[in-house]
Structures are given as C-alpha cells and as structure tokens.
C-alpha cells in the first residue's frame, strides 16, 4: 500500500514545472488572473491564486507576457497576453514535454530504440 502523502508530494513536484507552460499556452487568448485560474482548473491543471499571481508578474517582467488594464467594464481587470517571445518559449517547452512523455513511455515499454527515429 503506497502512502498517499508521498504520492501527493511527487505529483505536485511533477506538475510544478508545467504551470508556466500552461499559463503561456492559455494566455495566447488574453485573460485576467482569476479567469486564468478557472480556465486552468477546467483544463485539469488546477493551481492556486498565490502561485498564479506572482508567476504572472514574473513572466511579465521577463517579457514573456504583456499586460493591459481593461477598465471598460464595471470591474477593472488586468489582462495578460502571451508575447511572441512567450509563444516561442511555449512551443519549445511543449516539444520538450512531448519528448519527455515519449521517453518515459519508451522506458516503460523497454524499447527506446524504436522511438529514436
């Protein structure tokens, strides 16, 4: 019987690196913080407010996201959008993710050579 806490810890570790990729992919359609949280949750990649807001600011600082305040509606919202640079990074990371998945499947099946080409 495997300890559920242990599973949860490793699961979180595994998912941690994917939050950036998820944000960059999701925000190719502009979105604001709270909306993004719901989008990610619906997509099956739930995250916390205290992870997402600081992350959005860091990504914006590095020029991977651009932001604009939308004050047209009753509630002002800060909209973020993935920059061209951010989109390029997302492509690379997605390719990496797919490679990793393929490698892991190969390890699991025990025939990595078949997947090399």
């Amino acid at each position, binding site marked *: 019987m495997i300890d559920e806490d242990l599973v949860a810890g490793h699961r979180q570790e595994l998912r941690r690196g994917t939050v950036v990729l998820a944000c960059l992919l999701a925000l190719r359609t502009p979105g604001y913080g*709270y909306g993004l949280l719901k989008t990610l949750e619906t997509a099956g990649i739930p995250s916390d407010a205290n992870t997402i807001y*600081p992350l959005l600011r860091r990504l914006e600082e590095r020029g991977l996201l651009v932001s604009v305040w939308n004050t047209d509606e009753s509630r002002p919202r800060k909209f973020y959008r993935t920059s061209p640079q951010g989109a390029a990074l997302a492509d690379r990371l997605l390719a990496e993710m797919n490679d990793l998945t393929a490698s892991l499947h190969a390890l699991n099946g025990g025939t990595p050579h078949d997947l090399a080409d």
Partner: protein
Amino acid sequence: MTSLTDRYLAAVLRGIPERQRADVEREFRSSIEEAVQDRTAAGEERLAAEKAVLEAMGEPSRLAADLAGRPFHLIGPDLFLVYRHILVMLLATGVPIVGLVVAALKLAGGGDYWDALAAGVGGAWNAAVHMVFWVTATFAVVERADAMRGARDEVQKASRQWTVDMLPALPNVRVGAGEMVGELVTTSLTIGGILFLQQPAWFTDERGDSIPLFNPGLWDGWLPILIAVLVALAALQVMAFVVGRWNAVLAFVHAILQVAFAVPVAWLALSGALINPAFAEALGWPALADGTGPAMLLLAAAVVGITAWEIVAVFRRAGRSAASDGRPVTSGSA
C-alpha cells in the same frame, strides 16, 4: 468591501516595493471580489466566502515575498557552503587566539589566574558571537540585495568550479578543526599551569608568601622563553590547520620548536635547577629537586621520549599527506 480584505491587502502591500503597490492592490481587490461573488452566487454567506478566499491565498507576508521575488531563506543553497566554510575557519582560528590574547593581557595587567581565565573565556565567547553575527548578516544581505547580484554570481561561479584537486585529505592526514582546538586548549592549560605553579597556595614560607614549585630564578630567563616556545607551537598548529595538513616545512619547524622546549626542560631537570628546593623541602621530599634523583631523571626521560614521539608522528603525517597526492615529502606540499 469589508475590513477583512482591506487588512489582508494592507498586510500584503507592506511587503512589496512601493512601485508595485498600486497595481497589485487594484488587481488583487478585483480578483478577490470576483472570487467572493462566485461563492456567494453559489449560496455561500458573504463573510464566510471572503474568509475562504483570503485563507486560500495564504499568509500575506509569504505572498508579498513571492510577489517581490524575495527568497524565503536567510542564506540559500548557492551561498551556504561558502558561508559555512568561512564561518568555521574564522571560529576555529579567531576564537582561541582572541581568548588567549585577552587572558594574557589580563595577566600582564596584574590580574590573577582566575581573572585571566574568566577574561579569556568571556573574550572568546564575545569574539564567537560577533563573528557569527557579522558573517551571517553579510551573507543574508548578499543573498537579498539586488545590488549584490554580481557578488552572488561570483560566489556561485567560484563554488561551482570544483575539481578533484580540492578534495580534502583523508582523515589520518588532514589537520581538522577539532584537533587544532584540542592542541590550543592543551597549550593554554600548560601555560596556565606554569603560571599557576608560580604561586600555589599549598605551602607558604615564614613571611606567609606562597612557595613556587619552579625555581624562582628561572623567571629571569628560561620560563618566559619556554612559554614563548609553547605559544609558537600553538601558532604552528593553527597554521597546519589553515594549510589543512602537515607538510615538510611545517613538520621541520615543529621539530625545531619541540626540541627548543624539551632540551631546556630536560637539562634544567637534570642539573637540579628546575624545581625550587624550598618547595621540595616544604613537601617533605628534598630529593624531588635533586637533578640526580629519580623524579628528575624520570621527568627528563619522559620529556625527551614524548617529544621524540611527537616529532616522528608529525613527520609521518607529513609523509602520508605527501604520498596521498603523489608528491614527495621534501617538495613541500603547501
């Protein structure tokens, strides 16, 4: 909106740079409000909803540090090894030296041996507290300050350029901090013992003055010299620790100092000049001071024997240390 959100935001904003505050407050206020409304729309009571939303966002100071990109640690993994190394070096060398100097100054200033001991221990403790505090404070600043990013990168780069040449010697070759501190304590106790035996309270003469164990005439010549040799041996031990091992040069100096201690002591003992005859008299064992008596013969033999053994032991370690990195003893592996 209620005071809970205001208090939460105030606590968050306190911890982030001025220029970010307005933007963060605006974004968070609208997000919190929207999250609360989603919950009340689902039938939750307003106050309970607000509580739940804020608690899910976690401790404000933690969130603020995250927003400002500040580390959650005092000294992080990049700096920790360098920090520990510097601290250990400073403590192992500086603390005993400060303690000895403070105690010596107290003695020179006319204090008795208990005063000197108390002053030495107090001085060593003060030195240790200051070293730990200032080194830690400096590293904590380097870890945080944006202006220190350059220094941080330098340390990081330097500590990552590791090669096998930096491997410490094996334990039987290496001169460790514990060994050095042990030697310094032994030396201090020896010097303290010599000073103490100058006026022990065991026997007094007819004027009521205490009778010293060592020949009082020696204070004009040999005893200060022997104490100086002991201090030099302690300093040499510190050098061996700083270098990390005994090399040929250090072992040679060590041998000279050991001889400089043992030969005068043995000669003084055998010539009957070491022990105060009045002390031997008062003890009821006049032969103690006699250079041809069994006590002095035994003492001279013990001093010569121990010294020879120490010299050989250090040369052997220097030889092993040279062999462990493939260099001959005589090349001086410092």
